[in-house]
């Protein structure tokens, strides 16, 4: 397997997956660079979330390779791994419909993000040994730090159940930050948010990139957010690659306009 370039963190090449004969993703390739905020756009049903599910190994692609530069510094072929293994390499995701545990507090939900870093085993946890306690307290402190950064530290003990969407999105984001990720994948981060919340979220995404030195890959419907926050964008339609470039280039691209922006302008 070829190692990735110095500046590339994720490289997807010739990715294809079909469900019952229908090609949801057909020969899509793009690369995400270190420290980049990269957007994946396309009309409804274009296959964006499917690409995400392939990257995080919830779906196994029929064809193509997904290479990732892990936080350990090696190039990893993700398709050879299981979905619970990818976080260990520094790749973590959020979900379109917010997948939090509603019976747990905000703090406990965030702590789930630190799951893989725990060194003490179940037996030492059962007897609540000194090392187990120290480790738990250290991660608690880290989680509180993250919640502080996102401005929801004062609600850390609230149950997630019934909280407004804007806060839930932040809790999910906080959870991804627990594992010191190299690349965060955000599935429609602005869905369900109002205008001020979306604006706020754009700032949060940028600050995360700068403060935690991560790259961010996001799928989004809200064009203002995408054009505002992304360094580069890849557009797909009906599972096929259309174009990749800066927001300006994408806005000017004829194929993209025809497939997506064009129809929206006409409307």
């Amino acid at each position, binding site marked *: 397997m070829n190692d990735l370039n110095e500046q590339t963190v994720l490289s997807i090449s010739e990715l294809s997956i079909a469900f019952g004969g229908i090609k949801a993703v057909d020969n899509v390739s793009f690369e995400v660079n270190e420290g980049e905020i990269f957007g994946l756009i396309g009309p409804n049903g274009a296959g964006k*979330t499917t690409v995400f*599910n392939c990257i995080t190994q*919830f779906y196994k692609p029929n064809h193509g390779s997904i290479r990732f530069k892990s936080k350990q510094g090696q190039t990893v072929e993700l398709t050879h791994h299981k979905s619970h293994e990818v976080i260990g390499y520094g790749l973590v995701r959020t*979900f*379109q419909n917010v*997948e939090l545990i509603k019976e747990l507090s905000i703090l406990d939900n965030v702590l789930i993000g630190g799951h893989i870093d725990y060194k003490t085993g179940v037996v030492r946890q059962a007897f609540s040994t000194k090392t187990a306690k120290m480790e738990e307290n250290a991660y608690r402190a880290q989680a509180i730090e993250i919640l502080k950064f996102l401005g929801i530290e004062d609600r850390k003990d609230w149950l997630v159940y019934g909280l407004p969407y804007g806060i839930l999105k932040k809790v999910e984001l906080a959870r991804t930050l627990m594992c010191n990720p190299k690349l965060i994948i955000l599935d429609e981060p602005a869905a369900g948010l109002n205008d001020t919340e979306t604006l706020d979220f754009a700032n949060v995404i940028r600050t995360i990139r700068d403060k935690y030195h991560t790259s961010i890959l996001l799928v989004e419907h809200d064009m203002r957010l995408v054009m505002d926050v992304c360094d580069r964008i890849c557009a797909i339609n009906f599972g096929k690659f259309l174009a990749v470039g800066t927001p300006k280039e994408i806005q000017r691209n004829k194929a993209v306009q025809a497939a997506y922006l064009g129809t929206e302008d006409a409307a």
Partner: protein
Amino acid sequence: MAIFMQLLLRSLETGSVYALAALGIIIIYRTSNITHFAQGAMGMFNTFAVTFFFLYGRMPLWLAILMGVATAFLMGVLVDLVIIRRAKRIAPISKQIITLGLIMVVLGLASTVFGVDPLPLPKLIQGGEFDVLGATISYNAVFNIVFGLALMSLFFYILQRTKWGLAVRTTASNELTARLMGVPTKTVTMVAWALAGVLGVLAGVMIAPATKVDLNVLDAVQINALIACVLGGFQSFYGPVIGAYIIAIAKNMIVFYGQPLGLDVWGEQLVLLSILIFIIFRPNGIIGKKIVKKV
């Protein structure tokens, strides 16, 4: 061949009993989203009622059975009106426990009203047997087999071909939509509970002459019916019925043909083990469809 026929006929008879009980469980599951653990207990209660009508009410057996069917129907309606109808909004897992409470109430009532002593209940058709391909079978067994099959055919005919059946099927597939479309889902659920009660007492009356009527008369039937539902799949009405006959046939065959190998006492365990292995490979049962989860 004669032995095989004998085994097959006996299996069809027990299969009918399991199938009736399983059908009761699946009707409740599909219309109320409740696992009916009390199907056997309620059937037991009404079988006791039949026995009482027969022994102490001095009614002819057929009338006693009809009376038992009536009490079963009423009991089903009552359970729906008093409990199930008011429990729509509670969490699915808690809902399952309601029928456990029902078991306790029914067991307590049965032992209070009918006592704890086992009572005999005769066969509906006394005496008389004839030969089929070398196998001997009693008229009562034939009646049980034919009656079970006829009843289920009637049920499936109503389910597939009539307006009432359509109402049941729409309620089963999506209760909310059905209600919005004007299906009287409340009545459907009530009739389902009544029907399950009737199926329970019929299963009880069929199996009781072979044993005695006591508090545990339908325990084994309840368990086999539940397993039949898993084997056949909870997503269709006829899957559990097929599952019930398969279990009955497999059990009788293994117990008999396994005898030389010393497998007879292990027959039931072997059948259960095979079913376990089967559902590992076909998690949704014989008829079940796979449900794909979306992230």
